[in-house]
Structures are given as structure tokens and as C-alpha cells.
């Protein structure tokens, strides 16, 4: 069952990301696997849309397919992916103009996402130069790099610029990667499980940062996660993915409180609930509401 996006409100501007009938087929030794099967969704300015699902459901493949980061000889894309009005499935070259400009990625594991032999400063400066926003003058690039690190709340940015990835913690690296993503002032961020490799206390800080940046800049975010706590905290809409298709889509509140499928109920049930210390609002009689309320109360602190 392919549910259509539940969003019914009228948007004044065209979508930042419009995905129609998107398919990804992976060529493997065992044959062709349809990892993503006809998914449809869109993201507008200031919106966060989450794709949630268990490991292997195709959520990361969807994100990587949209960014065209899957190897061309192993992954066959079809359908329509309009990024800022340009179809990157039909015109593969067009992706080069949006990557690092209108579109940026926040990767899954910050520990392996930066080149270990290049300094933070050199990788950040490179992103700034590619974005072409600032002047190419060395001092201007450096000033912008420091400003970006300040925006993601990294202390003593001048010192951090000289450091190498192995000298920073996972949480700090993810902030650096967000700063790199922001270098181009992107309109759309794809966050592929941005907190799953981090400690729970650090996770909350990263999510707060993303929300803050979204509020300031009106960035659209495509969030990939397996964590309903994360989804609940930051999403406007969520799509529940299983075996390559969306089994349920809709407003975050509605999906969490009234899950329509067994799969979503199982995902909800997998979220740990705090015991006696329960602040569930009185009069809530829905069987799933306790879990939903627990999510609301504890936010992203669940893994």
C-alpha cells in the first residue's frame, strides 16, 4: 500500500524537493533488488520530513539516491526527483550544480565522514570555496569558516580549524559536518541518521542545533532515522518505510497517536517507556497514547 503524502495544505512556492514515483534498483550478485519502490513525497521551505523505518527498509538508499551518491554502475534510478525544480534523475549532470550549493548532506557516522589526513579548517574552507558565496580571498574564507563554526556552537573555532578529525569527539565532528553543510547556505539538508552514532546526550544537542538552524534560515530537512523519538521531536510529516515502500504517511502527531499499520505500532512499541515517573496527561485512553506521550515527554533522549 503506497500512501500518498498526507500534506493537503496549499503551498505558495514550489517544493524544494519533489519526489515522484522514485525507484532505486540495486544490481547485486544475487540479482536485481528493488531497494526503493515508487515513493512519493515533497519538502517545502522550513519543513522537516522524516523517513522512518528499520534497518534495510530502504530509507538511507532513498536519501543517497536523491543525492545521486549511489554508484552509477550498481544502482539504477527511475522516476522523478525535482531539486529546486531540476530533475536530477533525468539529468544526472544537474546534481553537480546542486550538491554543495542548494543541497547538503549530514552523514550518518561523523567519525568516518571527514578525511583523516586533512584538517577541519582545510575541509571547511574547501566547502566555502565550492559554494562560492564568500570571496575567495584567504582571510575572508577563514573568517567565514570561523563564523560557521560559531553558528554550530563550537567553542574556540580558531583552535579547532587547525585540528584533525581524530582530535575531536563524535558530537563535535557532527557539528563540524553541519557547519560544512551550511557553508553553501543550502535550502535543503539531507540528514541521514545524523545522531545514530552519537551518545544520547550529544544527540539532543545536535537535534536542537538542526531545529535552531531551520528556524533561523527556513531550511527544508529530509531526516532519515530509525528512531521515533527523533522523528517525533523534529518532524512535520513522517513516512514510515518498510521493504522499500511507504506503508504509512502523514502528520507526525497523527502517525504516532493513531498508527494505521501493525509495522508502525511495532516501531512505536520498540521505544522504551519510562515507568512510574509518568506525566501522561489525564483522560488519555488511547492504548498507544502512553507510548506517544512518553515520546513527547522524553523527546530525543531515547535511542
Amino acid at each position, binding site marked *: 500500500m503506497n500512501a500518498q503524502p498526507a500534506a493537503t495544505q496549499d503551498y505558495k512556492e514550489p517544493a524544494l524537493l519533489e519526489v515522484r514515483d522514485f525507484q532505486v534498483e540495486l544490481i547485486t550478485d544475487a540479482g536485481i533488488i528493488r531497494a526503493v519502490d515508487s515513493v512519493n513525497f515533497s519538502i517545502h521551505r522550513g519543513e522537516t520530513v522524516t523517513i522512518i523505518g528499520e534497518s534495510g527498509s530502504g530509507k538511507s538508499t532513498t536519501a543517497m539516491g536523491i*543525492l545521486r551518491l549511489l554508484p552509477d554502475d550498481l544502482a539504477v534510478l527511475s522516476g522523478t526527483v525535482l531539486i529546486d525544480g531540476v530533475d536530477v534523475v533525468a539529468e544526472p549532470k544537474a546534481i553537480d550544480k546542486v550538491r*554543495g550549493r542548494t543541497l547538503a548532506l549530514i*552523514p550518518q557516522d561523523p567519525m568516518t565522514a*571527514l*578525511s583523516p*589526513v586533512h584538517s577541519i579548517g582545510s575541509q571547511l574552507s574547501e566547502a566555502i570555496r*565550492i559554494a562560492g558565496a564568500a570571496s575567495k580571498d584567504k582571510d575572508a574564507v577563514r573568517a567565514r569558516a570561523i563564523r560557521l563554526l560559531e553558528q554550530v556552537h563550537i567553542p574556540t573555532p580558531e583552535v579547532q580549524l587547525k585540528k584533525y578529525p*581524530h582530535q575531536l569527539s563524535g558530537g563535535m565532528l557532527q557539528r563540524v559536518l553541519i557547519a560544512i553543510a551550511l557553508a553553501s547556505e543550502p535550502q535543503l539538508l539531507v540528514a541521514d541518521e545524523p545522531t545514530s552514532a552519537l551518545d544520547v546526550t550529544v544527540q539532543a544537542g545536535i537535534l536542537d542545533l538542526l531545529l535552531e538552524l531551520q528556524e533561523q534560515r527556513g531550511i527544508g530537512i529530509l531526516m532519515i532515522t530509525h528512531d521515533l523519538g527523533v522523528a517525533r521531536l523534529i518532524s512535520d510529516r513522517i513516512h514510515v518505510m518498510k521493504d522499500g515502500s511507504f506503508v504509512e504517511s502523514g502528520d507526525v502527531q497523527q502517525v504516532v497517536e493513531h498508527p494505521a499499520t501493525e509495522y508502525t505500532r511495532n516501531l512505536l512499541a520498540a521505544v522504551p517507556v519510562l515507568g512510574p515517573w509518568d506525566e501522561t496527561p489525564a483522560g488519555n485512553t488511547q492504548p498507544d497514547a502512553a507510548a506517544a506521550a512518553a515520546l513527547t515527554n522524553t523527546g530525543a533522549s531515547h535511542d
Partner: protein
Amino acid sequence: MTNYILKRLGQGLLTVFLTVSTVFILIRLAPGDPAVSYAGPLATTEQLARVREQFGLDRPVLEQYWIFLQQLFTGNLGTSYSFQAPAMQVVSERMPYTLTLATAAILLTAVVAIPLGVWMARRPDTNRELGVNVLTIAGQSMPDFWTGIMLLTGFAVLIPLFPASGFATWGGLVLPTVTIAILQIALISRMVRREMTANFAAPYLTVARSRGVGGPALTWRYAMGNSAIPVFTALGTRFAAMLNGVVVVEVVFAWPGVGSLIVRALETRDYPLIQATVLLTSLLAVAVQLVIDLAYPLLDPRVRLGKAAAA
């Protein structure tokens, strides 16, 4: 940093000392008699005894070793039997030839093998890559004396482009260099390919691509930047090995280097000359290794000197 260098220097000198001591014992354990080589097959027992006395070979081995140690610390390893000249001087005169050949060979290797390995890594499993891959296996499998003789026949005899032997002109450098480099290129290019392929698949490369980094920067700045350490180490180690004399190639091309010298020294059981050669070449090899180790932190920020020294 200074402590680290001093420590490595100390280790290096100890290595050299153990090497020359081992060689001192081994050549005396090996069959053959320097007196016979020197005096000739027709020499009488009395003549042989006189020669042994002259060379100090009639003394107990321990006493000979004690004399050798004294010589070692004065840097004078005695007189070569066959050249009748100070052994260190004979070797020192040959060293520049071997250095020239080794430098030329390692430069040619680096210049060809690195782009070739990158070229292969960028188009894996294509027919062209497969073809080059087969060629590198061939290059790896050909023994250098055979490669040398084939090149000699081809480019010195049939098509006389280069001199067949010696180092009278710079042209003489070409064939021995190519002979050595063919094997090294085959080995190093396959290594570059392996390293680059691994780095092309690394997550940081995908993330760099996602922020709009273009193909050349992904290949050279990122994948090569991360492949540089093992490749540099391999090139350095091979260079150090070549300084011990590229024996077969030097003999094939009558190259006046250390390699052909050591062959002659061994044939004539010229103990002082063997010892001087081993001393100089192992000193050079240790020095090259030290330079490689000191260059690590430049290539890889993760190698902290403190950590390396503690290990």
C-alpha cells in the same frame, strides 16, 4: 622530537653494528679461503701461510674480531685484498653509481606507477584495466636478469639506441634503470590501485562528493592524500633495498656500482671489502629508513611523534 631522533639513531647504529658483526662471522664460517683466491691455485703451503699472516687470518677469530672492532671505530676497515687499496675507499668510489641508479629507478617507478595505479583504480573491472592488470602481473613475474638481457638485445644490440654496459654517458643509465623499474612499477602500481580503491569506497569520500567536491580533487587530494603513507613507505623501503646494490642488474649491465663490487668481493673472499660494503650500505639503508619515519607525521597527522616513540 630530539629525543625521538636520538633514540632512532641509536637503534639504527645498533642495527648496523649487529649486521656487520653477523656478516663478519658468516663469511668466516662459509667455505672458501681468501689466501687461495689471492695467491692462486698453484701457491705452495708456505706461500699460503705467508699470505694468511699478512692478512692477519692466522690469528684466532676472536682476536680478528677485536681488531675489526677497533677498525670499525676508526672508520678504516683495512686494505682490500684484491684492490690493494683501503676497502672503505673502494666502496665509497662505487657508491655514487649505485645511488644514481637507485634514484633514477625509484623516480621512474614513482612517476609511472602512481598515475598507472590511479588510472586502474578509476576504472576497475573494465577491459582496459584488465589488460594493464595482466601486464603488471607479467612485469612482476619476469626475473630482472631476463628483462635486462631482453632490453640489452632489443635496445643496445638490435636497435642500438643505448650503450650496452657501463656508465660512460647518461644514455648508459637508461637500460638498467628501466630493468629495475619494470618490476617496481608492477608492484607499486598494484599497491596504489588497492589503496585508491579502498579510499574511493571510504565514507569520507562520499561525503566530500556530497558537498560538491569535483572528480580530480576527490582522486588526488582525498584518495591519494590518504593512500600516500603506505605508498611512500613502500617506495622508501624499496629505495633502501636498492642501495645495497642492485646486484643482478649491475652485473648484467657491467654497472660500476656496489652490487657488482660485492659479487667480486664475495668471489675472491675479500673480507675487508665485504665488510666495508656491508657497513656502508647498511648505514645508508638505516639513514633512508630514518628519513621515512621522520616524514610520517608530515603525511599523516594521526602519527604523533610521542606515540611512535613510545611504541
